[in-house]
């Protein structure tokens, strides 16, 4: 135990200052299936990093391991928190992750139908709300002040995302593209250092996808954060990302710039299959 801790401390000291997230030998298997197998890569500060792979390659599983929804069998997830210290996220509870500055969206949009757009976005600032339960029950000035402060922040975020006109509408019944945007807006409420997007362009049409590229870049510049995303749409990924990691059957194939990825033979084999000869 002690030697393990020492080892992990050494690993933390080895991480460069500009690295936000480092996966080190991350592995998880379900039964006999190795869903993620010794995955290792770094994400740097202010980087837009794409994770690609064919269906069932283990992309979403990798996300769930990073955010601790799944407990990895082996390996570490080093993350530079909002305080600037590097911590291993493995072993933390899912609800503790956001406090470190890591926030995510979901492949199948996870919004609350009974709440309005604004209320859904406000949920994103749950960890920012600082007033006791008693002051909420009695609506003391402290609770009201916090509510107004965060509401203002939420309205700013909604305005930035172009959603302020529908802020008081219910989420139920909104078009899919809007839902995706609301979920993205929700992640911006907690001052994130790294945002993880699970298939942000899935189900969007061409013009919406194009607009999304601009939005994601804008978020990176405005909120000074890194972005890690999983996506199928190759064009979207190569247009948007600074670096891309390709995985297949849970194993890393190649990490590089979009041009390098497109030129890489192994990636092409994984995606298109080997030509019959």
């Amino acid at each position: 135990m002690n030697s393990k801790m020492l080892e992990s401390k050494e690993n933390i000291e080895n991480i460069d200052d500009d690295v936000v997230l480092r996966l080190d030998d991350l592995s998880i298997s379900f039964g006999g299936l190795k869903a993620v197998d010794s995955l290792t890569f770094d994400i740097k500060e202010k980087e837009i990093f794409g994770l690609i792979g064919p269906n069932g390659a283990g992309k979403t599983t990798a996300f769930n391991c990073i955010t601790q929804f799944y407990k990895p069998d082996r390996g570490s997830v080093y993350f530079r928190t909002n305080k600037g210290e590097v911590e291993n996220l493995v072993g933390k509870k899912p609800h503790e992750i956001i406090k470190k500055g890591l926030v995510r969206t979901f492949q199948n949009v996870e919004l609350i139908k009974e709440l309005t757009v604004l209320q859904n976005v406000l949920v994103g600032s749950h960890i920012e709300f600082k007033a006791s339960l008693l002051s909420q029950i009695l609506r003391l000035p402290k609770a009201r002040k916090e509510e107004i402060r965060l509401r203002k922040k939420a309205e700013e975020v909604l305005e930035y995302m172009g959603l302020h006109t529908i802020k008081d509408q219910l989420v139920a019944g909104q078009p899919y593209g809007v839902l995706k945007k609301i979920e993205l807006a929700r992640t911006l409420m907690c001052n994130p250092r790294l945002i993880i997007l699970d298939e942000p362009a899935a189900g969007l049409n061409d013009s919406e996808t194009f607009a999304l590229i601009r939005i994601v870049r804008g978020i990176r510049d405005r909120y000074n954060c890194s972005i890690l995303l999983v996506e199928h749409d190759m064009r979207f990924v190569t247009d948007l990302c600074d670096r891309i990691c390709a995985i297949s059957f849970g194993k890393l194939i190649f990490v590089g710039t979009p041009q390098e990825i497109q030129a890489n033979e192994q990636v092409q084999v994984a995606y298109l299959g080997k030509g019959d000869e």
Partner: protein
Amino acid sequence: MDKKKTERMAKPKRKAGNPYINYIVFGLIMLMLPILVEKEVIKYSYLTIVAGILIYSIVSLGLNFLIGYSGLVSLGTAGFMGLGAYLSAYLTINLKLPFEISLIISVAIPMVLGILTGLVSLRIEGYYLAIATLVISEILRKAFGEFTAVTNGFSGKSAGFPKLLNGKVLDRNSTYILIVVVLVIVIMITHNLINSYTGRALSTMRGSEAAAQAMGINIYRYRLLAFAVAVAFAALAGVLYVHFIKFSHPNTWTLLLSLNILAVIIIGGVRSIPGTILGAFIVFGIPDLVLKNLPVIGKIDGIPYIFTGVLIIVVILFYPAGLIHIWFNLKRAIFSLRKKGGNDSE
């Protein structure tokens, strides 16, 4: 500039404060009842029935908060209500404690028991809370009958009208007023809770556990909180019950009562404060106030149960969101009619 912006933000908040007025008006209307009884407009016994309805409204609000906002179900409502009742009866009669102190203790002890139940059962997903509360409730019911030193067994435990700290003893009417005031306060607390960060966190948890966890909501803690609120309201209602009815019998606190309170929510409307009150009036009011006075139907044995049962089926079939939505639909219909009328005249 900045100030102006804050003011603009604050405006919708003031609008949201409006329901307070509705709640207070409701309370004032309820306060008219003793006067009407004295003027002999309505029967003396009706005050008891209405007080009962108001007391059951308090419990139902707690259970509706639990079901509607955390998605959990408790089947032990009656047990916790009975525990509050017996405790307060024992503390005021046997230990001669004043009402206020007895109230605090009689709410706190069931809450601690509830939290302990929750600590064990809420770790596991699914219906374990329902099972655990059912068990606790049955144990309590048995204890009410057997633990004669405190509960007086099946002879039933008597209590008096509230005796306050300053030695003043309330009479029937002022106890009724106390119940109305407590109900209005409970409504306001529930309203605030629902519209607070906690309420949103609970809604999120109910809608999507994954989203809740990703947003930093500790599901276990919030489940526990919602359950503690439900238990506290139940115990509070139990205390008021025993000091108004002045009697508590083990057979009052059965599973049947828990299910009736569940029926209040289903019939009235989940996630709705006015719906809960409406439901309580229907489930606990109509059988006693209306059905019993009808010629043939009133003679049938167990008519309240038949009534509630049939009503649940009808409501689930036609108004799954609760009868309060008839009112909302009506309001919308009137609104659109008026709008149409306005357009025609132009």
